[in-house]
């Protein structure tokens, strides 16, 4: 006789808990596997430490320390951008702000109004963030040394000295220094020959070309001045100076026609 059971089909007992993801393909020798893993970790950490030492010994990052940055009202912006890892962008933004501070609404000319009192500081702000920003040195030194209403060649020389220190192989800075020195002695022939070296560089700022063209004109070398203005007009990078170049070309051609 069968005994009465309140549960004719009792539910099956739950299966034993299996740790998910650790249940299959496990090593039959867990201790050996753990030892192997420790070995891998030690190897990786050693490689990490050793490679870090090698990286530092083979190359030192060529940037000034934070204490050398020129921190004005935009100091926080510079520091935050550098800390986020975008140093070159920080230099570009500082450069645009420098251009805005020097902007006169048109191309910069030697007879431009304005004394550009903060120009040296603005330039050093750019070049302390990125010491290899060539155009910043050349552009500002050009304004400080050649602009009639500015005429602060000492500041221009300070900027160029920093440029030479950071870019010792770049001879354009030395030519520029020479040109400033001869300009102070009013030896414009020497000034022109030194600026010619700078203008031969493909990334020479339009401002320097305009200064050289004006020096040619001042010394009566009209043909050279005309050729240089024509080259400025042909260079799309110098678009700020195109209107001025057209004007000068018209003037110089007019004087040629009157003469011959």
């Amino acid at each position, binding site marked *: 006789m069968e005994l009465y059971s309140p549960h004719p089909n009792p539910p099956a007992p739950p299966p034993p808990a299996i*740790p*998910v*993801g*650790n249940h*299959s*393909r496990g090593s039959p020798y867990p201790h050996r596997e753990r030892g192997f*893993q420790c070995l*891998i*970790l030690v190897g*990786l*950490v050693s*490689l*990490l*430490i050793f*490679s*870090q030492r*090698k*990286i530092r010994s*083979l*190359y030192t*990052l*060529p*940037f000034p*320390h*934070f204490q050398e940055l020129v921190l004005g009202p935009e100091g926080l912006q510079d520091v935050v951008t*550098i*800390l*986020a*890892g*975008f*140093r*070159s*962008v920080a*230099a*570009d933004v500082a*450069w*645009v702000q420098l*251009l*805005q501070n020097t902007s006169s609404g048109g191309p910069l000319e030697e007879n431009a109004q304005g004394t550009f009192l903060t120009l040296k500081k603005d330039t050093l702000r750019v070049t302390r963030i*990125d*010491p*290899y920003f*060539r*155009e910043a040195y050349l552009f500002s030194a050009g304004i400080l040394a050649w602009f009639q209403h500015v005429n602060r060649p000492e500041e221009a020389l300070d900027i160029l000295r920093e440029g030479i220190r950071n*870019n*010792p*192989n*770049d001879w354009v800075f030395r030519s520029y220094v020479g040109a400033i020195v001869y300009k102070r002695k009013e030896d414009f022939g020497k000034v022109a020959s030194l600026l010619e070296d700078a203008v031969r560089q493909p*990334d020479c*700022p*339009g401002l320097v070309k305009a200064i050289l063209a004006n020096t040619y004109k001042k010394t009566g070398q009209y043909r050279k001045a005309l050729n240089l203005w024509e080259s400025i007009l042909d260079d*799309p*990078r*110098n678009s*700020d100076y195109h209107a001025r170049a057209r004007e000068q070309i018209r003037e110089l051609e007019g004087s040629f026609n009157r003469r011959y």
Partner: protein
Amino acid sequence: MKAISAIIGYTLKQHLRHRMYLTVGLFGLVLLGGSLVVSSLAAEEQVRMLLDLGLAGTELLALLAIVFVMVNLILEEIDSRSITLILAHPVRRSEYILGRFLGTFLSIAMGMAAMAVLHVGVLMLAGWSPRWIYAIAWASSLGKVAVVGSLALLLSLFSTSAASSMTFTIFFWILGHFSEELRFLGEKAGNGLVKALIWMIGEITPNFSYYNIRDFWAAPLQPPPAWFGWMAAYTLAYVGVCLFLSNFLFSQKEF
């Protein structure tokens, strides 16, 4: 190996189908277009600015994307319990971690490559002639993204909230760019304890400034070729250590 490649494929598909991936791509396009407008303010340095903004924008988007994705990668699966479905298959936890990391990294690398192609196109239109250093700078950014991604994964397993993991990862990102300064301050410090503390932080934090080749490619003194090899070894070792520790933390979790 088969299990890892299957997880990589699954992760890659998951990311490429995600709406965020498309949004980031669109944002990248807007950023490149915006850099064209902004660079016109730089007068004769337009190409330089286009180059800098494009490379920086690519890296920034990749870093933000990898931090966001990596932090949520495993946390979301743990919360939704879908992780048990995957791990019920014959997959080791280490394989799962490695596959998920590599799949995410590959999807970000593909996005970065697409942005780089567009960027080079824009640069060439502006009169720039391609140089090898661009590829090196791009690869360095990729290395940085790999290190940040592995750190984000480790921190997401270390902490239980996505917000705190993201905050810690971004903190390491900034500290990584400050580590050279930190070392300099350490040299100046007189107190031995402070010196030791700074030294320790410097050793643990990845030195991200070395990955910014775009910042010093115009410097007169360039790193020797061996340096790049050591950078690759450093990146692999850092990522390896982070993944190893992530695997350890993940293996301690109960589902």
